[in-house]
């Protein structure tokens, strides 16, 4: 299973990014091989629709599960159409969230926000 997480930096010591669509990087973690890799989020600099493009990136990279603190409506629509399941992270630690997810301790993300669309996180 391939897990994706929005992260602040492209290295193993990174923390989880508060934004999904505009996260600088995505971290991919393979539950079988235990390998992790990073992808520069090309959607982060978009004028608009960053969530849509970021979700497209995850779909193109054949991600099965997304662990994220929050997710907007448009991104969620793309993710759901791609059968990517969304779980809500607890705290900023990548390692703990992957462990918690594997132990079945993370809940599905139920609050899908309407998007911040040019209102900078209001």
């Amino acid at each position, binding site marked *: 299973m391939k897990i994706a997480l929005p992260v602040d930096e492209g290295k193993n010591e990174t923390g989880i990014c508060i934004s999904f669509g505009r996260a600088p990087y995505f971290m991919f973690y393979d539950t079988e091989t235990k390998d992790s890799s990073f992808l520069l989020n090309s*959607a982060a600099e978009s004028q*608009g*629709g960053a969530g*849509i493009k970021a979700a*497209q990136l995850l779909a193109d990279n054949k991600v099965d599960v997304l662990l994220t603190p929050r997710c907007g409506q448009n991104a969620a*629509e*793309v993710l759901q*159409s791609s059968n990517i399941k969304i779980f809500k992270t607890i705290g900023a630690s990548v390692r703990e969230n992957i462990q918690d997810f594997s132990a079945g301790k993370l809940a599905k993300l139920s609050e899908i926000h309407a998007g911040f*669309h040019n209102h900078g996180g209001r």
Partner: protein
Amino acid sequence: MHIAVLSGKGGTGKTFVSVNLAAAAPKAVYIDCDVEEPNGYLFFKPVNVKEEKIIVKLPVVDSKLCTGCRKCVDFCAFNALAYIGSKVKIFDEVCHSCGGCKLVCPEKAITEKDKIIGSVQCGQSKNVGVNTGILNAGETSGIPIIKKLLKDIKNAEHQLNIIDCPPGSACIVMESIKDADYCILVAEPTIFGLHNLKMVYELVQLFSKPCGVVLNKCSKGKNPAEEFCIKENIEILCKIPFTKMLGIENSNAHIIVRKNAKYNELFTSLLDKVCKGGQHEAVTGT
């Protein structure tokens, strides 16, 4: 001549200044570009109102013709399209109606449909033509409506056009002041008011527009907006006092210059200053 009236925040008195400025002129057109909450018409109560619907184009994909090349998805600067499960998905509210996806599609799989997003209403109130832009509730961008309002006055340089802008300093305000010959910045005597005045002042400078400030709601005590104008050498066009009478008249949607000689004089002289300022800049600014 196009005069834009703007402020960094709502409630400073843009509509109050625009409406009275237009009404104080022998003849003028008042253009309400605050399309999300147009309210100038409440004061003018225009008659012979004609309405025109504003339509934008949205893409529609024929999935039978689509080969999944993704040229449309890659082209869209606003990411309004995604390619999911072998299908193009379109996010209507993200689309800016540029028509680019239709142009780049090699299979001609994209056509366009019409969507009504609002309207423009034009009427008359004594000496003032009243043009109001109205964005339908739930729509994301009023820019196409503002474009239509300003297109209608584009070649009407000979008449006096007063543009009542939306609050803030975002894209929608830039669109509203683009063709202006002069910008009036309305400011409140508060620290918050000053913060927002700075933002719009920066914006009009970016557009190299001649400008001046109307200090509204002036009362006793410090006026941070006035101190800023003096420090930055920005012309203070006039000061309007904070009075109960103005508050009541405004709340009852009365146009003060049509009732009160003192205010008629204040706005006539404001208009005079602005017209001279705009022309002066037009001559020396080249």
